């Protein structure tokens, strides 16, 4: 059994690298492979099909976010699947607890410390603000930022996409990030 560990470790670390790089195939495969198990869990625990989907998507994004922010590392024997499953389970328990709280008015006792998202509240708020404000950018800015920060394309490629010079692509990236930052700051005022 011990012989499995290095290859298992390697497998997780390859998966992690691919997800961190936003590799579409890896994200899609991982998303689709793990849904049935979590769906089963939620439905077995008083959830509906729609709730299973919502909780799973929330958990998936949280996992992705934590990978991006280096809050999950392939250490020990924790597999990515197990990690995603735990996040989803905790989210579902939180949801049930809050629903129960609304009904009974009594705060249920904490079962165990299940904090899976060490990202601070302020950081999460900032990320939410970014997600919201990105929608207000012009199409080109949104696309430049998406290609650069999500698809991890080079400036050269982005310049090709828009028929710009590389210098223009670089300037526009700066201009667009500044626009986005300004939109976020304005909200905070």
């Amino acid at each position, binding site marked *: 059994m011990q012989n499995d560990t290095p290859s298992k470790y390697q497998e997780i670390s390859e998966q992690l690298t691919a997800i961190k790089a936003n590799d579409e195939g890896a994200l899609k495969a991982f998303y*689709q492979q793990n*849904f049935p198990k979590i769906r089963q869990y939620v439905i077995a625990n008083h959830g509906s099909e729609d709730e299973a989907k919502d909780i799973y998507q929330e958990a998936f994004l949280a996992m*992705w976010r934590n990978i*991006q922010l280096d809050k999950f590392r392939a250490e020990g024997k924790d597999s990515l699947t197990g990690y995603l499953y735990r996040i989803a389970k905790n989210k579902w328990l939180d949801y049930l607890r809050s629903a129960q709280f609304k009904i009974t008015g009594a705060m249920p006792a904490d079962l165990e410390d299940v904090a899976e998202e060490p990202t601070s509240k302020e950081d999460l708020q900032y990320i939410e603000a*970014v*997600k919201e404000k*990105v929608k207000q950018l012009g199409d080109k800015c949104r696309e430049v930022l998406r290609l650069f920060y999500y698809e*991890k394309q080079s400036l050269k490629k982005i310049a090709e996409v828009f028929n710009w010079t590389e210098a223009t692509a670089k300037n526009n990236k700066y201009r667009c990030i500044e626009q*986005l930052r300004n939109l976020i700051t304005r909200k905070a005022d």
Partner: protein
Amino acid sequence: LRLDNRYNLTQEELDKMDAYLHGRMSAAERNDFENEIAMNAELKRKYEELRLLMVGIGEASLQQKINSFHKEIGREENKAAKAKVISLKTWVWAASVAAACCIGVWMLFFNTASSDKLYDAYYKPDAGLPTVMSVSDNYSFDKAMVEYKSGNYAAAIKAWEEFETNKPGNDTLHYFLGSALLANNQKEKAIPYLENVAANDSSAFQKEASWYLGLAHLKKGDKEAAKKNIAASGRENKEQLLNKLK
């Protein structure tokens, strides 16, 4: 980190941090940058902010993507269910053939196997091309390819038809436009595009186009045209289908 980000971010700082985040620095540069961040609290704050910007921008994209991933799960399940039906059909068919052989009505049964059924059994949409978003010309083509691969055939058709108006005659475009139309049950419109590619000796898609062209004719009920084109394709199972069409 608070929502208050009112400090000045210069383009130079941004480019440097981007290079670090994208892994486009040499080991020495990385080292320098990491030291700089450790020493300079303001720069560290800017770096932390940029990471959150990156995550927020990414999450907005990913959220849309996972919705299309999810839609596919439903479709895959349907496909699996359909495949089961087909295999059951095949089994019934095999059993019937055996029985029919004995009583000498095999041919009679065979003729009732409709073109539609054969089409359903043999038709599977082309999986599409990998999308890389590289050259500018390929950009909207690739976007449409993503739609195609997600099963949004109508959206892919719309984008590719525009492409065809602006730059007519490309065999890759014709092949996928034909494939998308066929997948969208528009066989009549698919046929001319597939014909172009099937007649194009220099196209890499020629043989595949012949296969789909044959199937499109089969769907139409034109067995002769179906046979001719299926025979010109490179599919391993073409003989099997041709035998059934005899």
